[in-house]
């Protein structure tokens, strides 16, 4: 699971073009859509793309994303469950 989480952090940085960050800067439980990273609704869509292209998981309704993308922890858990 921790390997998946590290992988996810790198993928998030790439998909969202967070040029100044490294995986070490994102904690497992950091609120991704909180104040620290300042992500927005466009990023939420990018997460959906990330899930499909890297893990083959499709999310049809963008509003489902809010819970899934809360943190790296919740993302990893969702992937494990749905792969």
């Amino acid at each position, binding site marked *: 699971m921790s390997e998946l989480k590290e992988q996810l952090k790198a993928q998030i940085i790439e998909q969202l073009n967070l*040029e100044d960050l490294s995986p070490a800067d994102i904690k497992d439980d950091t609120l991704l859509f909180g104040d620290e990273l300042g992500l927005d609704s466009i990023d939420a*869509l990018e997460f959906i793309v990330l899930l499909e292209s890297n893990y083959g998981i499709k999310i049809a309704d963008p509003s489902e994303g809010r819970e899934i993308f809360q943190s790296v922890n919740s993302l990893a858990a969702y992937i494990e469950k749905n792969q």
Partner: protein
Amino acid sequence: MVFVQALSSISHQNSFQKDSIWTELTTLEANSECESPDYKQYIPANALRRLSPVLRMALAAAQDCQSKVDGEFDAISVGTALGCLKDTEKFLTTFLTTNADTLSPTAFIQSTHNTIGGQISLALGNHAYNMTHTQNSVSFEVALIDALLCAKDGKSNVLVGAADEAIDFLEGLRGEIIQSDRQFTSGASFFVLGPQEKSVKVIDCDIEYGTQSIHQSIDQFLAKNNASINQIDLVLFAENIDLNAKKSLNYQDYTGLYYSSSAFAFHIGHDFLKSTNSSKVFIVNNQSDKRLGLTLIEKHEA
């Protein structure tokens, strides 16, 4: 009367935040590069990560202008000939090559022409009139004409400018659609117009699509503005034209090739007036033979 309150250009010249670009103007070398500032100083990282070169240049230049004037802009008018080419190409490539159901939206969102003006309004928290004009080689002139309409309507802090970027793809069009040997370049030039007296005033700007006679159009424009060619101290043109003027320069020698480069010519003209003993500058944008852009600016004696 409409005066230039502030100005800012990012180009292949060392132009950003220079007191006068006139004194340091040099013809571009082959394979010149855009002289970009450290964008992190002007744009927060969160916004910067999504911005292509044209968006970065325009936003930094607009921020630079905002820092030089008091108060919020009460109108914003932007010109761009080809818009956000890098993101357009990126999104085109994405959907033409992917089989996936989901597509990355960022490049699409960033590809629309009015992303430039939109990003400026977002960054500045500005709620005023915000317009994006795109008319090929006269894109800056139409944006300027709109800005002058705003000023006449009573707006006193008008941001106007233009930006365009080069992408490698354009090279492939050379010879076929684009008849020029010049290097494809990028640039953003922004100005603030207002009623406070400053050293340079904007007299008039006009465009004409389907010109029958450039010389006739020039004569009519100058006559309309109580001027004649022998009063002009500097003519800046895009393609060589013999007007029998005191001094003439081809501004593309300093901008390279992009289609809103007359905005940089405006900056050159402004700084020429400020730095020399002169009174009138005339910009003849004959970059295309299909349409003409004419702009007259003058020194203001307080």
